[in-house]
C-alpha cells in the first residue's frame, strides 16, 4: 500500500486530505509543517508527497528545493489555496508534478496521485 506524506498547516484541510487518501486505499501520514516532515523523512519511506505551498517556517517551494538537493527523488503534488501563478510556476520548476487549487475535487486529486505513482 503506497505511503503518502500530507503537508498542510491547516488542521481541517490536513485531516480531510488524510481521510480521502485513506478511503482510496493509501496510507496517509499527516504533517503540520515542512520541518516536522523533514525530521521524519528517510529515503524510501514515502512514495509520494502532497503539500501546500504557503506554510509558516518553511514554504512548499523551499521544501521541494531541499528535497531535490538531497536527491530524495520523491514525486510531489501541490495542493494550494491562493498562491499566485509565479509561486506555482516555481513549484513546478522545483519538480512538482502538478499544482492543484483548493477546493480540489477528490477524483481529480486521486487521478493525479494515481498517475504520479505509476510514473514512480
Amino acid at each position, binding site marked *: 500500500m503506497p505511503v503518502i506524506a500530507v503537508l498542510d*498547516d*491547516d488542521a*481541517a*484541510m490536513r*485531516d*480531510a*486530505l488524510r*481521510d*480521502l487518501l485513506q*478511503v*482510496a486505499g493509501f496510507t496517509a501520514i499527516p504533517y503540520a509543517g515542512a520541518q516536522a516532515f523533514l525530521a521524519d523523512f528517510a529515503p524510501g519511506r514515502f512514495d509520494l508527497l502532497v503539500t501546500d505551498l*504557503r*506554510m*509558516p517556517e518553511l*514554504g512548499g517551494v523551499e521544501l521541494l528545493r531541499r528535497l531535490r538537493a538531497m536527491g530524495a527523488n520523491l514525486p510531489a503534488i501541490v495542493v494550494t*489555496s*491562493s498562491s499566485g501563478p509565479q509561486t506555482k510556476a516555481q513549484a513546478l520548476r522545483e519538480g512538482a508534478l502538478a499544482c492543484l487549487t*483548493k*477546493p*480540489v*475535487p*477528490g*477524483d481529480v486529486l486521486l487521478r493525479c496521485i494515481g498517475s504520479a505513482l505509476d510514473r514512480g
Partner: protein
Amino acid sequence: MNEPLSIVSERVGAAAQPVRHARPPRAEEDAGERRYRRLLHRLPIALVQIDARPLAAVLGALRSDGETDLSACLEARDELVRTVRQIMYVTDANQAAATLFGAATADALVRPIDFLFQVAPEAARRMMIACFEGKRRHVELMKVRKLDGRVIDVELTVTFPVPPEQLDMTLLTFEDVTDRLRTEAQLRQLQADYSHATRIATLGELASSIAHEVNQPLAAIAMNAETSLRWLSRDDPNLAKVADLTARVADSAHRASEIVHRIRAMAARDVPERGPLHLNEVVREALLFVHHDIEARAIDLSLDLAAGLPRVMGDRVQLQQVIVNFLVNGLQAIGQGNAGRGRIEIGTALDEKGAVGLFVRDDGPGIDPENLDRVFDGFFTTKKDGVGIGLAICQSIVAAHGGRIVAANHPDGGARFSFALAPAAD
C-alpha cells in the same frame, strides 16, 4: 408629613409676588440700578432675571427640617419642584431672551419660571440642588420650548448671587446651541462615514487574505463530503468514519461562517457598541484578517500577550480595526525596501499606570522623525497611493475610548504603534 411650602409662603411674603423691580428704589441705588438694567437689556446674550428668594425659603425650610440629601428628597417629592416652578417668577428679561423664546416683547417673559422647564423638568430639579449645595453657578445643556411651541437646545447658566438677600437678582442665561449640536452631530456622522470607508478600504486591501481564510474551511468541507460519499458507496459502508467526517464538516462550516460573520461586522456596522472585552481576544480576532498575508510573505510574527489582563470597555469591531490598521501599516512598512528581515511583534501588557496596553512593532524603515507628530493627522500619508485616513481614524477611535495612542520609532529600528486603555470597572 409637614408642609414646608405653606410656611415658606408666609415667611417670604411679598417676595413671591410677580412684581417687576420688587424692591422699592432707593436714591443711592438708583444710578447703579439703572446702569445695570441698561446693561442687562443691551447684552447680546439671552438673559433672564429671576427672583430666587422663594426657592431659598423652601430650601431653608427643608434644611431646618434636617434634610441633607436634596436629590433624594426631590426624587421622593416631585411636587416640590412643580411648586417651586410656580412660585418663582421671571422679574426681568432682555431683548435677546425675547428673541430666543420667540416673544413679542421682553415683558412677555415676566411670568412664573414654569415655562422655562416644560421640556426639561429635571433641569429645574438640578438647579434647585445646585442652590441647596451653595453653588454659585450651575451650567447644563437642556431643551426649552419657545412660545411658538418649537423646541430648541440651549445651554443654561444660572448664577446665584452670594448674599442671600440678593437672590432676587438671580440671573439665567440661555445660549441657543441648536446649530452647535447639529454641527457636532454632523461631524460625528462624518467621522463614522470615514471610519466605515477606511474599514472597507482595509478589507479591500486584505481581500486575498480573507478569501484564503474562507476558502480553507470550504475546501476541507468539500473534500470531507466527497470522502463520506466514498465510504458510503462501499459494499461495507464505514458509518463510524462517516460520522466522524460529518462532524468535521460541521466544524469547518462553523469556522467559515464565523469568519464571514467577522468580516460582515467589520464591513457593515458603524454604530459603536461598548462592552467589557478581553484585549487579547480582540488581538487574536484582528490577526485573523492579516494572518494569511503574514504567512504568505513569510513574516516572522511574534505574539506576546500578557496573561490575566483586566478587561477593557470598548467596541470590539472598532478596536479590531485599530489593531488591523497597525498590522497593515507594519506589513506595508516591511514592504518598503529591505530594511529588516520582515518581523512584526505584537504584544499586550499592563502598564505602570494600570492601563491595558497594546503595541505593534515592525522592522521596516521606521517613521521619518519629521513626520512623527503628523502621522495621526487626517489625510497625512507618505504612501504613494495612500489616503492617510487609517491612523487618523485609529486615533479618534482610541480617543473615543478614553485612551492614548502613540507612534514612535523603536531604538533598534522600525516603527512602534501603541495604545493604552483604562481597565473596565468591575
